[in-house]
């Protein structure tokens, strides 16, 4: 799959999973929100998608920019408010295919860091209040965009596909800033697990709950749809059975030994 794929998978998967569920009004074109049911349980799907006509010229290709950050917060907080007295909190499913945060003068000027913080805080708050939050990675999950949209989930699921990549900086940008070719960067990154771009290397870090094999990640077949729905269903059951609503489940990876050791040392020294 080409690395310059258009990040339109979010829209495709939201439509596939949501079926006939309408997009909720009141959001910019780049943020799609739909409520549906999975296994009889209410769930809100949220995706950030390209909007070639966005008034913000640096946020037209599926990046998480100013409008997207604040609107993600709106989508999540409205679900929290609606379910405040509900016996069962709806699931919140972030469908992730985003190349990065938006880079631009407008963005920095108006505090894009704060817009992304609002989204991250909303997802984290939903999780702490008992909503099961799931991130479904269907394409790129990069850097600040992923921090805002997906990284606060109880469980992270990813399609097993070369187009699914998690990283702190896109390949082209990283190659440019380290003065290498993309091929050299990829070859080097493959030797250092946290730097690698592919989803299998990412899986060794222990942050993913499950990778889901699919036939066609960019355009799901009916089989793909049922496979993913089943995985989402399993993830919900796993979250429901978990007494903890924090991110401690991410600390088990073979390549996260230092993360565990630091916490153990802190805990042993905390009381003094």
């Amino acid at each position, binding site marked *: 799959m080409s690395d310059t794929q258009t990040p339109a998978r979010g829209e495709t998967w939201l439509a596939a999973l949501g079926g006939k569920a309408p997009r909720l009004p009141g959001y910019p074109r780049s943020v799609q929100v739909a409520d549906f049911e999975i296994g009889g349980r209410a769930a809100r799907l949220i995706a950030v998608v390209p909007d070639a006509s966005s008034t913000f010229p640096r946020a037209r290709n599926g990046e998480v920019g100013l409008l997207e950050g604040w609107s993600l917060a709106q989508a999540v907080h409205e679900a929290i408010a609606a379910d405040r007295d509900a016996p069962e909190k709806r699931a919140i499913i972030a469908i992730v295919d985003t190349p990065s945060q938006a880079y631009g003068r407008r963005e*920095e000027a108006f505090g894009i860091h704060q817009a992304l913080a609002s989204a991250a805080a909303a997802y984290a708050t939903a999780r702490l209040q008992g909503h099961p939050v799931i991130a479904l990675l269907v394409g790129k999950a990069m850097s600040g965009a992923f921090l805002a949209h997906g990284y606060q989930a109880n469980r992270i699921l990813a399609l097993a596909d070369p187009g699914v990549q998690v990283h702190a900086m896109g390949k082209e940008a990283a190659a440019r800033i380290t003065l290498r070719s993309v091929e050299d960067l990829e070859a080097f990154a493959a030797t250092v697990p946290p730097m690698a771009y592919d989803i299998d290397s990412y899986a060794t870090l222990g942050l993913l709950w499950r990778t889901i094999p699919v036939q066609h990640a960019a355009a799901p077949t009916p089989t793909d749809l049922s496979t993913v729905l089943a995985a989402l269903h399993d993830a919900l059951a796993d979250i429901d059975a978990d007494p903890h609503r924090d991110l401690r489940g991410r600390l088990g990876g073979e390549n996260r030994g230092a993360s565990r050791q630091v916490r153990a040392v802190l805990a042993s020294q*905390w009381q003094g």
Partner: protein
Amino acid sequence: MTRAALLSRESFVELGARARAQALLDPGTFRELAGPFDGLTSPWLKRQGVVPQGDDGVVVALGTIDGHPTVVLAIEGAFQGGSLGEVGGAKIAGALELAAEDNRRGVPTRAVILFETGGVRLQEANLGLASIAEVHAAIVDLRRYQPVIGVIAGQVGCFGGMSIAAGLCSELVVTREARLGLNGPAVIEQEAGIAEYDSRDRPFIWSFTGGEQRFATGLADRFVNDDTTAIRDVVAELIARPPRSAHRSERYTDYLRRLGRYDASKQPTPDAVRDLLGDQT
């Protein structure tokens, strides 16, 4: 500032991370955890030919501030630009997690984060990014119980995923030397071109992302001189308050409305930003 005041002030900006933490905590109460002699250096740097630092660029110090139990997380901007790797990120997230646990057991531990950072350490990419997500989670958890105070002093400033962390803090203290932005100037110039963002134009950069502008536009809560005593006093005042019931990060309706009034076809000026975002009443 009077001449005597100018001469007697001690720069906070010029202090390293450990000295900053010592300066904020009540004398005699500083106790470093997971420190450099505990052997917790980066597992990823040496294989890439990068010399590690004993504390991986983060100091965790427990103590009191005006008698209140407080953990100070100080990032060392001089080491790899203050970028966060697996160990440094785990120190911050882990300490915040323990502070939240304290509060659940009835111990009112606060947290102060000294942001001097470019964000994720690229040599540790996904582990740095994941640890920052855990920092975000821990701040949102802890800030329900106690105010989480962020301080950005400069000269590195606060960028990348940690600028999001700054946006999650209950209160944010900045100096004139500080900068707060999501993307580093060089990366914006590289991605969007020099006409969009000139990374070598320092007045331009500070005019949009500097401490004074961020304070004037409601994105920071306190603006202080680069004076250690003044910064300590502001931090002490802020941690003594009860936790917030509402945070800036929850004001999406307000910010979307303001952005809706902006003609995005034009590049903004610092004054235009003050008009749009200032006056937060």
